[in-house]
């Protein structure tokens, strides 16, 4: 088996900071220019017609005019590009990576929320391009791009990123992505085609992700991140129903798990072939939670260790913070820069985002697959207080048309912590049934999201918070409702969103 080169915290060998990409031939491409001009015109028209933010149409049009436009623009980026993929945590991880790199003094360009297909990446790059086909400011920036799992092979082939960060792999929208194994196989194929210099940043605690290093040539750089110890109760271990990787990615024998943080994420080893959780270069010890507000842990890196705080709920966000710290390490950030950027970070769009609504507040907790939902449910269930809840389930293409997955999540974790409950969305009644069979029928079932928001807020006393748990398109819709009432910016007006 080919062995890439891991870097570990205990080796004390800091990974060398990546040098800037050599500035060679930025050729004028007439076709790229035409692509950018046409794509941009399409975006402008879209916004004029108030049809949306135009975060993907310009790229779609441009890639039609010049299929190489992404490569042409992407390879001009002075500090290279980081691609972030995985089932959960893409948006928060990329936002955290951006925050770390900016704290380290780099200019960062990133794609906007939800524009994580090839056309969205192209749109983002075009926003920084002159009509000549050259990047503005001579591309003196690092690109941070979150990329859809299914679009990943195409995007990395076009963009040729220097660094790839993979958060985790869970079942998500089986109707769209296929089974977990199929996704892993496509990722491996794509990774095998990238140059040996591409750096991989992988979650050591997810066997399917850690095994991606097998697709890389000998000597190719790989850094792992992981959690050493965190609070898990016997109760949690009993509750694990959503385990998407049970067998060894190399030999298919059942894995031995000595520590299970959630789903299949933990400390694992294959008793048959010996493949085991690699030692992480960047890791968290002594993780503790402060309710739904965040967590604290000791952050160990090749640069040294520090006490870290993140203001994001749940263990899954500790992984996102570790992912960002790892990216910081390879991009030359200092430990204080990493520490400060994690501590100052404010949650990404809809992922633990708090919005003041006059004398009340809303906390948006996006949940789009069983593992993500379980982590949100666990965070709600662990909190002392009872919560006012609005759950919204849509089944549009971006949410997944198959809503079976709600039955794989442990709604039973929150039934004792409900002050009021409203269910909404195209599948409001499916959610109502899920809660009913968990022992907590909702107070209100209202498919219309605007009406449901009003109904849910009516239960919330002044000064208290409504916890909103939506799927992806439901999050856009409820955020739209909130913004129509004058409380939140429209998403394409958000800086860096």
């Amino acid at each position, binding site marked *: 088996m080919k062995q890439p080169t891991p870097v570990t915290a205990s080796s004390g060998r800091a990974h060398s900071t990546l040098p800037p990409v050599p500035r060679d031939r930025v050729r004028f491409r007439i076709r790229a220019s035409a692509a950018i001009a046409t794509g941009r015109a399409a975006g402008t028209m879209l916004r004029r017609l108030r049809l949306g933010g135009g975060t993907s149409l310009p790229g779609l049009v441009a890639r039609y005019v010049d299929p190489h436009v992404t490569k042409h623009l992407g390879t001009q980026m002075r500090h290279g590009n980081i691609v972030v993929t995985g089932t959960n945590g893409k948006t928060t991880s990329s936002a955290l990576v951006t925050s770390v790199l900016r704290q380290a003094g780099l200019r960062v360009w990133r794609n906007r929320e939800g524009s994580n297909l090839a056309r969205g990446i192209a749109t983002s790059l075009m926003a920084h391009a002159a009509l000549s086909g050259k990047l503005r400011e001579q591309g003196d920036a690092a690109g941070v791009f979150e990329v859809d799992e299914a679009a990943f092979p195409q995007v990395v082939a076009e963009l040729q990123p220097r660094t790839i960060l993979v958060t985790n792999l869970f079942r998500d929208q089986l109707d769209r992505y296929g089974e977990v*194994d199929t996704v892993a196989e496509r990722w491996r194929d794509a990774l095998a085609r990238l140059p040996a210099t591409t750096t991989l940043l992988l979650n050591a605690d997810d066997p399917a992700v850690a095994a991606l290093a097998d697709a890389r040539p000998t000597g190719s750089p790989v850094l792992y991140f992981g959690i050493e110890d965190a609070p898990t109760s016997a109760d949690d271990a009993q509750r694990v129903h959503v385990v998407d990787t049970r067998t060894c990615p190399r030999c298919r024998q059942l894995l031995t798990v000595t520590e299970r943080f959630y789903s299949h994420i933990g400390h694992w080893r294959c008793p048959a072939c010996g493949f085991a959780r690699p030692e992480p270069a960047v890791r968290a010890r002594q993780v503790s939670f402060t309710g739904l507000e965040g967590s604290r842990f000791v952050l160990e890196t090749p640069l040294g260790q520090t006490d870290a705080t993140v203001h994001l709920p749940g263990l899954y966000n500790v992984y996102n913070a570790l992912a960002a710290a790892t990216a910081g390490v390879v991009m030359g950030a200092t430990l204080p820069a990493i520490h400060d950027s994690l501590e100052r970070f404010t949650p990404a769009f809809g992922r633990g985002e708090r919005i003041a609504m006059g004398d009340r507040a809303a906390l948006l907790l996006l949940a789009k697959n069983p593992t993500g939902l379980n982590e949100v449910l666990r965070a709600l269930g662990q909190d002392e207080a009872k919560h006012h809840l609005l759950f919204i389930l849509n089944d549009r293409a971006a949410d997944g048309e198959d809503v079976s997955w709600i039955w794989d999540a442990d709604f039973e974790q929150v039934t004792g912590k409900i002050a009021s409950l409203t269910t909404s969305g195209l599948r409001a009644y499916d959610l*109502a049934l899920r809660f009913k069979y*968990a022992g907590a*029928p909702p107070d209100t*079932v209202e498919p219309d999201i605007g009406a449901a928001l009003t109904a849910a807020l009516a239960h919330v006393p002044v000064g208290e918070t409504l916890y909103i748990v939506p799927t992806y398109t439901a999050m856009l819709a409820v955020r739209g409702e909130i913004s129509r009432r004058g409380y939140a910016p429209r998403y394409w007006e958000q800086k860096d969103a």
Partner: protein
Amino acid sequence: MPDSLAENAGENEHNGPALRLGHLYPDQLNMYGDRGNIIVLRQRSAWRGVTLQVTPLEIGEPLDPDAYDMLFIGGGQDKEQDEVARDLREVKADGFLRAVEADMPVLAVCGGYQLLAKYYHPAEGPDLEGIGIFDAWTIHKGKKVARCIGNVALAWGESTLIGFENHGGRTYLGSGAQPLGRVLAGHGNNSEDGREGCVYRNTYGTYLHGSLLPKNPHFADHMLRLALDRRYGPGSGLRMLPPLADTEEWRAHETMLRRLNVSPRSHSFDVARTS
């Protein structure tokens, strides 16, 4: 315990009536919300004072037909299907076939349905042999042929069933085999002959998940009543499981029928048996 859904297993039944459900391969076959079916069977029993004891039946464990009143087998990823198919044939087939011939109610969803038929012919690689309860077989016509994915509505007796299907293989029924229902919207077994699922004695195979039972409460009760009749004598099912209001269940069911442009039929569980 490998699966906390099995928490009632082994409880004595002096406290009231109980049903024993054998859940085959819960670790390998757990896709598409199969757990939802178990939760619904358990809650709908509990709401009428019947305890549902769930026992996981893992790889390597033989199936004792006298130890259960009901069996459930779900769907899984392809790689897990091989291992399960072998165990089903080599370790459990004997007990399984005896249970089926003794009219034990069995619910098989998606991959489980395919495994109870004669064989599965994959896109590539050798055929996967099933245990032949259903006179049916499944053919995967290659990765270029679109999967059958989407919402489904069936005519089931005087009533309807709704669910979500997602299968690459097309299933065909032999001349003597009875389908579960007639497709009103969606693909069904093969998107060609308008049939969905298969029924043999009290064994029901279907591609419908979603999960199947939450939004089809009449079908859930039908399965439970078959099990109660068999254990406590004819008529016990209806006596021990009086109807529930099921308001949200039928709202969810009818919301989907409307979306699929299918007119609602009866809510009745009293199905004209097809055998």
